[in-house]
C-alpha cells in the first residue's frame, strides 16, 4: 500500500554520515557531511524528486562509500593511529599463531609435554640470536604481505583467530596423552616463548608505525 512506509530523510542522512565517517571524523567534520546531504537533497526535492529518490541520487553523486572512506582514512592521522593499534594487536596474535605451528610438531616428535607457555618456543631451542630474529622477522613480513587490515577485511582476522583456537584445542588433546619432559628443559622453553612473544609484538608495533607514517598520502591530494 502506498505511503505505509515513511521515509525519514533526516535520520537516513544522519545514519549515512555516521557510516561514512566510521568513527574517525570529529563532530564538525561529520556535521559538514550532514550539511552537504541536507543541502543537496533539498535542491533535488525542489527539482521534483521525492525525499527517498533525492537521498539515493545524492549518495550516488557523493561516490563509492569505500573509496570515500579510504580517502578520509588517509587524511586523518588520528584514525590511522587507532588502526595501527588494532593492526598490531591482531597481527601480534596471528604471528604467535604461526610461530606456534612448528614447535607443536617438534614437541610431539620428541615426546614432549604440553605447556601453555611453551608452544611458541620449541623451534628456537639451541638456535642462536640471528636465527631467532630471522624467523620472527620472516613470519611478521609474511603476515603483513598476506593480510592488510582495514575496515573491509576484519573477517579474515576473525577466521585466523578461529583457526588458531581450533589448533590449540586439537594440540591440547593430543599432547595430553604424551609423557612429560624434564623440568629444566620446560623452563627453558618457557623463557624462550616469553622472549619470542614479547620480541615479535615489539617488532610488529614498530613496523606498523613505520607503515602508518608512509600510508599517509592521499591519491587525490598527492599533488601537494
Amino acid at each position, binding site marked *: 500500500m502506498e505511503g505505509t512506509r515513511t521515509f525519514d530523510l533526516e535520520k537516513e542522512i544522519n545514519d549515512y554520515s555516521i557510516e561514512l565517517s566510521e568513527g574517525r571524523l570529529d563532530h564538525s567534520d561529520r556535521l559538514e557531511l550532514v550539511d552537504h546531504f541536507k543541502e543537496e537533497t533539498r535542491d533535488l526535492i525542489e527539482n521534483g524528486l521525492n525525499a527517498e529518490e533525492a537521498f*539515493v541520487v545524492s549518495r*550516488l553523486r557523493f561516490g*563509492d562509500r569505500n573509496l570515500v572512506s579510504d580517502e578520509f582514512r588517509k587524511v586523518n592521522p588520528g584514525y590511522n593511529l587507532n588502526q595501527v593499534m588494532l593492526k598490531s594487536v591482531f597481527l601480534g596474535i596471528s604471528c604467535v599463531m604461526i610461530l606456534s605451528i612448528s614447535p607443536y610438531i617438534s614437541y610431539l616428535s620428541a615426546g614432549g609435554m604440553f605447556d601453555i607457555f611453551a608452544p611458541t618456543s620449541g623451534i628456537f631451542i639451541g638456535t642462536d640470536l640471528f636465527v631467532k630474529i630471522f624467523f620472527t622477522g620472516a613470519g611478521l613480513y609474511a603476515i603483513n604481505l598476506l593480510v592488510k587490515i582495514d575496515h573491509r577485511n576484519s573477517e579474515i582476522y576473525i577466521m585466523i583467530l578461529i583457526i588458531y583456537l581450533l589448533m590449540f584445542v586439537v594440540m591440547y588433546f593430543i599432547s595430553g596423552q604424551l609423557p612429560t619432559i624434564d623440568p629444566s628443559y620446560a623452563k627453558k622453553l618457557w623463557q624462550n616463548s616469553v622472549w619470542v612473544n614479547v620480541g615479535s609484538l615489539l617488532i610488529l608495533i614498530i613496523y606498523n608505525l613505520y607503515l602508518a607514517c608512509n600510508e599517509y598520502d592521499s591519491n587525490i591530494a598527492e599533488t601537494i
Partner: protein
Amino acid sequence: MQYLDILCIYAVYIEDLGMSDYSKELVAASTIPIVLEVLKQGDNYGYAIIKRVQEISGGALNWKEGTLYPVLSKLEDRKLIQSYQKDENGRTRKYYRLKPAGKKFAESMQLEWSSVNQILSKLWKAQGHLT
C-alpha cells in the same frame, strides 16, 4: 528502494559515459588548484564549492562529491586553508578561508598550469602548420 537504486546507478552510468569529459588523472591533478581558485574569490563551504565548479565548467567537470572533503581536510593540514564555523539560517556551517600560504601556492600552480598550456598550444599550432 532496491529497484530505484539500480535505476539511479544506470542513470549515473549513462551520465558518466556522456559527461565525463576529463580523464581521472586530470580531474585528480586539477582538484587542488580549482579549489584554491574558488576560495580566492571568497570564503565558501563544501557543497557551494562543488556547485560553483559545476556551474563554471558547464557541468563538464563532475567530481565524485565525497572526494572533495578529504581534499579540503588535507589542504587544511598543510595550512593552505583554514576552516571556521559560521551560523547561517539557524544552522552552523563549516566555511573555508584561503590563507596567505594557500594564495602563494595557488599562484605557483597557476604558473605551472599556464606553462603546460603554452607548451601544448605551441605544439598544436606547429602541427596545424604541418597539415
